[in-house]
């Protein structure tokens, strides 16, 4: 029988962890829904707050772990160096908020709920913070698997969903070609335009005393 590869060992680890990952995702989503309920009740017409959870898929987790090193190759002589528990986002929740001025309110409510979680905001290539993001443990369901939550302006979040699969996880035939300086510039333009749209909408609401 041939030796098991590091990938096989990590797949076994994934399915061993999967019940915990699911529990963290459910717990985190439920706690976030509960913590944002008072805000949800006060949303005005056209304002939105959507909470979504996701469990990272097995192959995606392996790919993320291998992506740490150039050549995307695990060192077969150092199997102990690799564990999926080093990934902070096996269970994740995304809170989409519109308009953006609701974001601070949601962020504060969640920070109060998860005061010990580590902040690692999502930034663009220039280091500008686009959305708050935190990692930590849901101690009610264990301290093996970490969870992640992020509070994202809705327009940006929906754009990223499309952009992520087109550019970050592209069709293999586009791999290495999609993530170019020109595409990065275009993405930055879209992000700036979406921010301006939110500024404009917020200004109309403010001026109308709604």
């Amino acid at each position, binding site marked *: 029988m041939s030796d098991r590869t590091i990938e096989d060992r990590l797949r076994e680890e994934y399915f061993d962890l999967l019940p915990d990952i699911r529990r963290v995702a459910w717990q985190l989503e439920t706690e976030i829904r509960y913590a944002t309920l008072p805000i949800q009740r006060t949303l005005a017409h056209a304002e939105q707050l959507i909470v979504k959870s996701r469990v990272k898929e097995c192959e995606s987790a392996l790919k993320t772990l291998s*992506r740490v*090193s*150039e*050549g*995307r*190759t*695990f*060192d*077969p*002589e*150092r199997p102990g160096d690799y564990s999926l528990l080093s990934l902070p986002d096996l269970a994740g929740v995304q809170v989409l908020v519109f308009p953006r001025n609701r974001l601070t309110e949601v962020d504060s409510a969640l920070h109060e709920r998860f005061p010990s979680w580590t902040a690692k905001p999502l930034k663009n290539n220039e280091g500008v913070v686009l959305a708050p993001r935190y990692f930590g443990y849901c101690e009610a369901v264990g301290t093996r698997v970490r969870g992640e939550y992020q509070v994202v302006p809705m327009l940006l979040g929906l754009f990223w969903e499309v952009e992520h699969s087109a550019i970050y996880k592209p069709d*293999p035939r586009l*791999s*290495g*070609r999609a993530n*170019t300086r020109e595409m990065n510039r275009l993405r930055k333009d879209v992000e700036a335009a979406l921010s301006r749209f939110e500024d404009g909408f917020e200004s109309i609401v403010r001026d109308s005393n709604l």
Partner: protein
Amino acid sequence: MKPDILSQADFRYNFDRDLYVNRTMKKAFSLEFVDDHPEDELRKLIQESTDENGWRFYFNHPPSDGVRRELERVLG
């Protein structure tokens, strides 16, 4: 564009490893290396002769012996 320079020199993109590979030359460029180095330097490195019998890996951080052996096994 850098991918075109590599493609014209018969480098093929390996989707699993994010490497540009030329099996005849036995050279492989990592995606990170290609991103971080100018076109002129890539052209020079594509042309440079290698005395070694084995593979030449152009990485920002040289691969460990274990990774090198694994890549050589996978790339053939």
